[in-house]
């Protein structure tokens, strides 16, 4: 539908998609190169270079960063965290609270600017 850039994981160049099912639970931080589908419970922060979908009875308590799109389904819940996304869909019935920042996708700078090597102090 939209010109999303192809999402690949480094290993095989295939589009990567991770699913947390209804009985799955994650506590901590997760970074995915690709898409993430959550219908389980997450306590912690999620970051994906593609889409994140919280569907079914999925519950996320924590920060969510999606470089592309975030969908919160009608029975799903996203509470409390910072939400940074390029596109956002919240379906009627969803539980949703937090701080939302939208705009141009702004992936965290992967390459830290290299430290400029200071010329050695001149000696007197």
């Amino acid at each position, binding site marked *: 539908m939209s010109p999303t850039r192809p999402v690949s994981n480094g290993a095989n160049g295939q589009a990567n998609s991770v699913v947390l099912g209804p009985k799955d639970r994650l506590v901590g931080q997760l970074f995915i190169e690709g898409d993430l589908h959550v219908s389980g419970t997450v306590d912690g922060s999620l970051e994906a270079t593609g889409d994140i979908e919280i569907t079914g009875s999925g519950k996320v308590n924590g920060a969510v960063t999606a470089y592309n799109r975030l969908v919160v389904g009608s029975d799903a819940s996203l509470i409390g965290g910072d939400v940074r996304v390029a596109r956002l869909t919240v379906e009627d019935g969803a539980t949703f609270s937090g701080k*939302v920042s*939208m705009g141009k996708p702004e992936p965290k700078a992967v390459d830290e600017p290299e430290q400029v090597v200071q010329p050695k102090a001149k000696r007197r």
Partner: protein
Amino acid sequence: MDVQEAVAEGTASVDNGEVKRDGRKQFSMGPGDILEGKLIYDGSIHADGKVEGEVRVSGNIDVASGASVRALLEGANVTLKGQVEGAVTARDKLTLGKNAKLSGDIVVRRLQIDDGATLNGHVRMGDFESHTSGQ
């Protein structure tokens, strides 16, 4: 936020903008209308054109797609299709249409955001403490 207690001024007046619909009052603005100040209204408002200040209504707020709003908005059902800057309170449901752009903190009971809408601000969901029970 230093909006004075000004009466609605500008081209939209209650007299020429009021339409009855379903027995409820509707304050209807056109694309060329301007509302500046504070409006407290027992009914619904269809906002178009330019709105600045504060709008609190007992019914619904509906912001048209070409509208430009810099105001605090409070209503039962709030539907945004245009640009809004300011805090929004929806005692029932807030809907952001696909072309809506909202910068401001929102307090809602229910929330629907359509794909394409832009939101920047805090979202709080919950019940409302002390409002006239319009359930």
